[in-house]
């Protein structure tokens, strides 16, 4: 035992020594643009996180392989594993920001919230594509945060609009019951103010079914409540293991699946497949293309997946979440390209990136050039509106795959925008003194 103790002692010492050696940070390569990706392939939300992470990383790697980067400068891509954990997220941020990070994609509302105040201080923009703080759409208050193409409030308004259409007009919503099942965290709670406002406006009743993060896989109570309350529609804001469980439970209580609509984060194939054929009819919003019929995706397959440069399973390509990750990287890449054009520099900084993102204009033509025609709705960021309230579509699970069933639906901008502005003002007031915008508008 004595020797083992010595071993333990020396292990402790060795670890200490090894660690002190690690602290010297790797110097930033001068001729590349550094993009850290905060991803999670572990932890309770890995099921959703892996596909997103693959999509994001693969597209950027493909640009390196195919085009040698962007504007002739290679991208240095580094993944940092957060496990959807706020502590690790901040640690990843601190560890990577010194290397000249251009932009952060936290993929967690919690981590996004922590990075928002830091963004303006460290001069590195945060891109929270379709998640995070809705109010961040107000560019005047949040010059460093981008949540293009849509906020959750846009999404919530689209759902209500769609349900209204199904009922033959929004006036018919009066007296209807709409159930809202959500992950009981900042993420799931965000849409509630808007839904409540719409409930008042159109006279429907909003029923809330929170799912605690720990109980994601144990939702029988929530769905029993649904069964008792018999809502006409169910709307879901779920993530990770919550989605498949909810869909299974819905099947179990024989809820009419065609009246069950999820947000774009509840749109994974794995999620719906959990309910099997009985889940056919389940709908989810989406703003990125489904399937592999895009030249850019074929390029990803050809340049990086088939050559074994990335660990992606070819089967999973073209899925909703994978493509979502790709879209995220398309926005990053276009932001970098725009920034390069605006500044004339090849190697850009976080501040340049911010200008690039604020001038982002992903037109139909540009999408076609990228080999992604029809992959997403054209999107444009303005200094005033960092989300843009872009249209989204609804896809339906046919038992085997998702099929697009509606055309692009415009969010209710008139309802969403005032709420966003009020929320931004509220945020600034609660976090007083919140810095006023000093960054000039690049366009």
């Amino acid at each position, binding site marked *: 035992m004595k020797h083992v103790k010595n071993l333990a002692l020396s292990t402790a010492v060795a670890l200490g020594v090894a660690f002190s050696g690690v602290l010297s940070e790797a110097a930033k390569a001068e001729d590349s643009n550094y993009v850290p990706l905060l991803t999670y392939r572990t932890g309770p939300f890995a099921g959703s996180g892996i596909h997103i992470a693959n999509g994001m990383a693969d597209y950027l790697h493909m640009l390196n392989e195919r085009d040698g980067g962007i504007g002739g400068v290679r991208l240095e891509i580094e*993944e940092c594993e957060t496990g959807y954990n706020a*502590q690790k997220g901040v640690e990843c941020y601190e560890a990577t920001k010194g290397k000249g990070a251009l932009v952060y994609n936290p993929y967690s509302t919690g981590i996004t919230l922590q990075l928002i105040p830091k963004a303006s201080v460290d001069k590195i923009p945060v891109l929270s594509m379709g998640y995070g703080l809705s109010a961040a759409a107000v560019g005047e208050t949040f010059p460093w945060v981008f949540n293009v193409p849509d906020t959750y409030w846009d999404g919530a308004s689209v759902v209500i609009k769609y349900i209204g259409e199904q009922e033959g007009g929004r006036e018919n919503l009066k007296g209807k019951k709409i159930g809202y099942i959500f992950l009981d965290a900042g993420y799931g709670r965000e849409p509630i103010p808007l839904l409540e406002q719409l409930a008042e406006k159109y006279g429907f009743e909003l029923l809330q079914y929170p799912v605690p993060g720990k109980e994601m896989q144990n939702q029988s109570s929530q769905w029993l409540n649904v069964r008792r309350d018999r809502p006409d529609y169910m709307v879901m804001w779920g993530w990770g293991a919550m989605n498949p469980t909810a869909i299974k439970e819905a099947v179990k209580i024989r809820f009419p699946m065609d009246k069950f609509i999820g947000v774009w984060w509840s749109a994974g194939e794995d999620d719906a497949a959990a309910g099997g054929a009985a889940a056919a009819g389940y709908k989810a919003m989406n703003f990125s293309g489904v399937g592999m019929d895009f030249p850019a995706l074929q390029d990803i397959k050809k340049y990086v997946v088939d050559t074994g440069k990335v660990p992606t399973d070819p089967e999973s390509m073209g899925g909703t979440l994978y493509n979502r990750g790709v879209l995220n990287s398309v926005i990053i890449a276009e932001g970098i390209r725009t920034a390069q054009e605006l500044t004339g520099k090849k190697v850009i900084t976080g501040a340049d990136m911010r200008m690039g993102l604020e001038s982002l204009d992903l037109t139909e033509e540009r999408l076609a050039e990228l080999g992604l025609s029809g992959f997403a709705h054209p999107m444009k960021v303005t200094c005033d509106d960092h989300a843009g309230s872009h249209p989204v579509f609804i896809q339906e699970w046919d038992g085997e795959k998702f099929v697009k069933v509606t055309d692009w639906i415009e969010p209710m901008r008139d309802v969403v925008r005032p709420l966003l502005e009020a929320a931004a003002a509220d945020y600034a007031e*609660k976090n007083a003194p919140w810095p006023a915008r000093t960054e000039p508008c690049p366009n």
Partner: protein
Amino acid sequence: MFYREAGQYKTSYEADQALFPIRQDLVGIGVILLVAFVVIPLTANDFFLASIMIPFLVFSLAAIGLNVLTGFCGQLSLGTGAFMGVGAYAAYKLTTIFPDVNVVFLVLLSGFFAAFIGAIFGLPSLRIKGLYLAVTTLAAQFFLEWCFIRIPWLYNYNASGAIEIPKREMFGVVVSGAEATPLARYFVVLSITVAIAFLIANVLRGRIGRSWMMIRDMDIAAELMGIRPLQTKLMAFAVSSYICGVAGAMMVFFWLNAAEPSSYSITLSFQILFMVILGGLGSLGGAFLGAAFIWILPVALKFIPGAIGIEIGAETVEHLTFMVVGALIIFFLIVEPHGFARLWQIAKQKLRVWPFPY
């Protein structure tokens, strides 16, 4: 040889009861404080301060808090995370209600709220002991976590459901909020941690500390010696929760900047418990060693492969980290269940007799 106390005589009980009766220890502590207050601020970069030292100190303080309860008073608690959360939310509410009051003062004040809640959840400890008590502290953990989500007043009705830390200054230096430099935050965290550590060391060597240890070592005998078990245990719960509450408030105010309820989940409770056990139950120094091990090891593991030029995916590193941390925990428990504090003693013993084996 190097660590020899022979020839140091005490001529008064005062000297004998000092915190560091042996000269080498006193010098050692002096050197550590010198490094902490002078050398590190002068040499360390922002990453080291913000991602290593600040979390390390916050966790050390939390580990001291739990150590008071578990290590000194023998009451096993799995609700540390929630008690830290109470401190954080209390401090957040206090800064909203009293925006002009010094933020460090409010952070220290917030601990009292945690102490109060901790004492309430300590009540069952009179009837429930050991592992059963540990499981009941989970009731505190889950109930409080639920409160953090369900009582919007606690987070000022923020749409995000999280608390976000405003900018606050002290002596003209920004100490909280995003603009605060790691250095400023480091000094605040370091000062609070060191101050509380010294104060609690005083309590532990006096009557109250002894009464906790009496309850820990043999509660029946303690009661027969005139110790009131409920009062003593509740006091331990309150003091422990106070310290944890301050640590929790520091965690969000001077480290994370924003916190969701999930920041104070059961995972955090386990993290702190690991630090206490590995550091050594009933050892204040051990709390620091344990915190260093549990916080710094995963960070180090994350960077070691890159530093020695091995390319492995971020998720593989994470998996390996889990495996290594888990395995090392078991390894250290097997080798030395009394933690690093005991290993340190053994090391001192070796230095004392060096170069002879005994």
